[in-house]
């Protein structure tokens, strides 16, 4: 029988977990409408039973996913603690600072004539932005981002070398947790206007968050704040280098076309490729009855190429409008908190790049091997050096 959902065997155990007995398979959700429908029905498809495609030890998930792997009402309360910092209005308030940082990054890259675009440009703006928001001191930022990176690259052999992946992952998580706990303790006594200060003084139902809860929050913000914008920046530059007609169109009217271009950058990159939900009750999909407890994996990249949702989805089109991609999720309570922030950063960095070094070209990217993040590990770029 043909139906647009399919059932698969469980994903490969990338961490070498202890024998877990019989592992259940999962349903693959690959169509745009289905990704949106499931994302918007948390009553039937919950996040509290885990959100990652691949399995991981429960203590790892608890220490790293925070409200991402929660359902209402706890999810709403925890997310609510930081959501005000990410609203379009609040992001507009810090936009000038983001633009100024983007200008500095591109001006520092300009004299080099090229190199690894990820290190030179793509990685830097999200690192500065989210670190400023959380309140991570300058001296600790590289260390924090390196550990955050490891949490989403554990499926790539380069990330762990000869060591067991679970050991590398545990070490990265420990680094982040320890750092977050120290920062939280400092901000308890020395409050500032950053997110960490807000978290340590926040109350839910009359109680302060525990340090492990704050640390998990920190891990989530560090990972989500760094990875997705960075990789979208790299994929977008590569797309502009390959699709020269689209690049010319954008450069012809940068101010007028940047906003729609950014939406296409996100659709094209689809930086987060999967999240999982679990059925909370018997659910019928296309005549198929899914019992409670079934794993359901949402494939965002596939939804963003769905021929039934996008006209000519394989065409990179910076004028695509409307462009209702699911690059930030399919809506519902887990829609990406940082969507406005990501859009603002992408507009800022490409506004500067295409003005200051308009002839920048990217080579074929070296991609991360991952079912979670559509990551670019390295990507050579070149341009005419400018003083």
């Amino acid at each position, binding site marked *: 029988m*043909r*139906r*647009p*959902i*399919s*059932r*698969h*065997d*469980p*994903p*490969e*155990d*990338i*961490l*070498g977990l202890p024998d877990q007995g019989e592992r259940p*398979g*999962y349903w*693959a959700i*690959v*169509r745009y409408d289905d990704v949106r429908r499931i994302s918007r029905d948390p009553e039937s498809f919950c996040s509290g039973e885990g959100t990652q*495609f691949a399995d991981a030890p429960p203590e790892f998930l608890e220490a790293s996913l925070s409200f991402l792997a929660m359902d209402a009402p706890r999810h709403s309360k925890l997310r609510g603690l930081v959501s005000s910092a990410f609203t379009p209005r609040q992001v507009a308030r810090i936009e000038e600072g983001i633009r100024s940082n983007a200008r500095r990054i591109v001006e520092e890259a300009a004299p080099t004539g090229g190199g690894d675009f990820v290190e030179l440009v793509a990685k830097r703006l999200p690192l500065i932005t989210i670190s400023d928001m959380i309140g991570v001191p300058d001296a600790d930022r590289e260390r924090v981002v390196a550990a955050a990176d490891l949490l989403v690259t554990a*499926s790539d052999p380069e990330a762990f070398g000869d060591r*067991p*992946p679970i050991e590398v992952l545990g070490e990265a998580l420990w680094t982040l947790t320890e750092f977050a706990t120290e920062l939280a303790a400092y901000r308890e006594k020395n409050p500032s206007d950053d997110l960490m200060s807000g978290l340590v003084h926040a109350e839910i139902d009359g109680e302060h968050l525990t340090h492990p809860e704050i640390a998990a929050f920190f891990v989530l913000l560090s990972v989500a704040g760094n990875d997705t914008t960075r990789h979208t920046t790299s994929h977008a530059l590569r797309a502009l280098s390959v699709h020269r007609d689209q690049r010319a169109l954008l450069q012809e009217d940068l101010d007028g076309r940047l906003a729609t271009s950014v939406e296409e950058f996100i659709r094209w990159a689809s930086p987060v490729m999967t999240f999982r939900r679990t059925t909370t009750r018997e659910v019928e999909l296309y005549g198929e009855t899914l019992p409670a407890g079934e794993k359901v994996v949402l*494939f965002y*990249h*596939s939804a963003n*190429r*769905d*021929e039934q949702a996008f006209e000519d989805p*394989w065409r990179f089109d910076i004028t695509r409008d409307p462009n209702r991609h699911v690059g930030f999720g399919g809506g519902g309570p887990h829609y990406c908190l940082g969507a406005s922030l990501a859009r603002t950063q992408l507009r800022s960095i490409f506004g500067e790049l295409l003005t200051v070094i308009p002839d920048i070209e990217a080579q074929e990217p070296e*991609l991360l*091997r*991952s*079912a979670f993040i*559509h990551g670019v590990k390295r990507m050579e770029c070149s341009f005419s050096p400018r003083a």
Partner: protein
Amino acid sequence: MRRRRSTVTFVAVSEASHSPDVDLGSLDFWGEPAEERDRYFAWLRREAPDLAS
């Protein structure tokens, strides 16, 4: 660590009426070029068979 091997053989999306020999949950699949993965998803969107063993 347990590793699975899967042979990834694709046919053109327009021609695919049978299951490509692909395991969506294997790391090998996620190490394939994006174009090949995209082709498989296009096939899944259209055909979506039961692939569990």
